């Protein structure tokens, strides 16, 4: 609806320059009747299309993983003392109230539960693992995000992904070693107490290396120590990340 308003060439071109896709009815009506202005508008639409092509910039490899890693490195924010004390008081009351449950749960750390839930969600060991095969370049990128490199004697890494578990960015790997597939989590920012666990059909071993940790899991419980040793040797070497930070 133009409501009788007739746009002249000057105004039509002005609107076309501001936005060649402008849907003003009077402009569109003018374009239907004026070949010169219609050609002018088409040129601008084509120019916009070229701008879309010309401004494409290749995203650096592993850019999203680097952002997530950077955030996990820098987001440790100090809490106010007041809230810390309130939290401690609340924890104390809860501990007294639910002491029996707390003692029972001590054997099943929530962190292990998170790891097992994550592995189960990925479903990489129960389905055909080769459906999930990851390219070597991606594997190297995931390992670099965790501040490490490909270990020499750890078996064949067939799947790798940078995941966030329990608020931490970590490398999640699936390794084939003969008939003993196992899952490895490399945690560049988390220091977890060393322990072994066995629950929900998963056996695991968590090892601490300085301020980092490694968790190795499988469903048979065998070979965990060998796998842990292989990854620990590589993971204990400080490596410069792509952001230039040594971790």
């Amino acid at each position, binding site marked *: 609806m133009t409501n009788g308003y007739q746009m002249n060439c000057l105004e039509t071109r002005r609107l076309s320059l*501001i936005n060649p896709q402008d849907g003003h009815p009077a402009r569109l009506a003018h374009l239907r009747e004026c070949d010169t202005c219609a050609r002018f508008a088409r040129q*601008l639409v084509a*120019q916009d299309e070229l*701008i879309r092509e*010309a401004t*494409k*910039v290749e995203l650096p490899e592993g850019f999203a993983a680097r952002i997530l890693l950077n955030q996990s490195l820098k987001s440790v924010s100090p809490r106010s003392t007041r809230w810390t004390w309130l939290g401690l008081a609340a924890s104390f009351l809860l501990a007294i109230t639910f002491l029996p449950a707390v003692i029972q749960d001590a054997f099943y750390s929530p962190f292990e539960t998170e790891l097992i839930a994550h592995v189960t969600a990925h479903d990489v060991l129960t389905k055909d693992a080769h459906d999930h095969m990851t390219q070597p370049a991606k594997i190297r990128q995931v390992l670099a995000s965790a501040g490490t490199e490909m270990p020499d004697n750890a078996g064949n890494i067939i799947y790798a992904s940078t995941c966030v578990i329990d*608020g931490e960015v970590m490398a999640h790997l699936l390794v084939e070693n003969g008939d003993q597939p196992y899952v490895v989590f490399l945690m560049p920012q988390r220091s977890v107490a060393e322990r072994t666990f066995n629950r929900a059909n998963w056996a695991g071993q968590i090892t601490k290396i300085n301020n980092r940790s490694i968790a190795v899991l499988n469903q048979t419980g065998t070979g965990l120590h060998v796998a842990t040793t292989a990854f620990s040797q590589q993971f204990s070497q400080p490596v410069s990340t792509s*952001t230039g930070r040594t971790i």
Partner: protein
Amino acid sequence: MTPPEKHKKFENLVHAYSGWLHRYAYWISGNRTIADDLVQETYLRAWRFLDSLKEEAAAKSWLTTILRRENARRFERKQLEYSDVEMDSLPASQNDFDARPEVVALRIALKKLPATYREPLILQVIEGYTLEDIAAIMSLPRNTVATRLHRARQKLKHQLENDERISNELS
């Protein structure tokens, strides 16, 4: 928002918008390394204030505004940390870009365009922001944005026509 929810929300923002932010950062800063840093700083700031983002639909504009402010901060301290880098002098890998002559010509023309004209054009053409959105992101009156877009397209068109005329004369 619980910590896992916050992490999930943040991860979604990174995967959804880091590509756009990097492209925008490159075209307002003129330098890949600075663009990388700007996006990293943008997400760090976004993480700190993530609780203030109430509507998912507003996330892209929110992040774009943060990035713009980070870029402005860069200029406040640039005498110490950055040197001015002319976009024309930037090395561009052949693999990164479409090498058709008309695209290359347009890229050169875009780099010659003053940043005040280039920025609203990028926001409108690449991401389809409206005049009102761009006015809000750039903290400018709507009419000023309209004038800048008008001049940006006019200058680009003249530049390309001029290039074509010279090319025809030479051949």
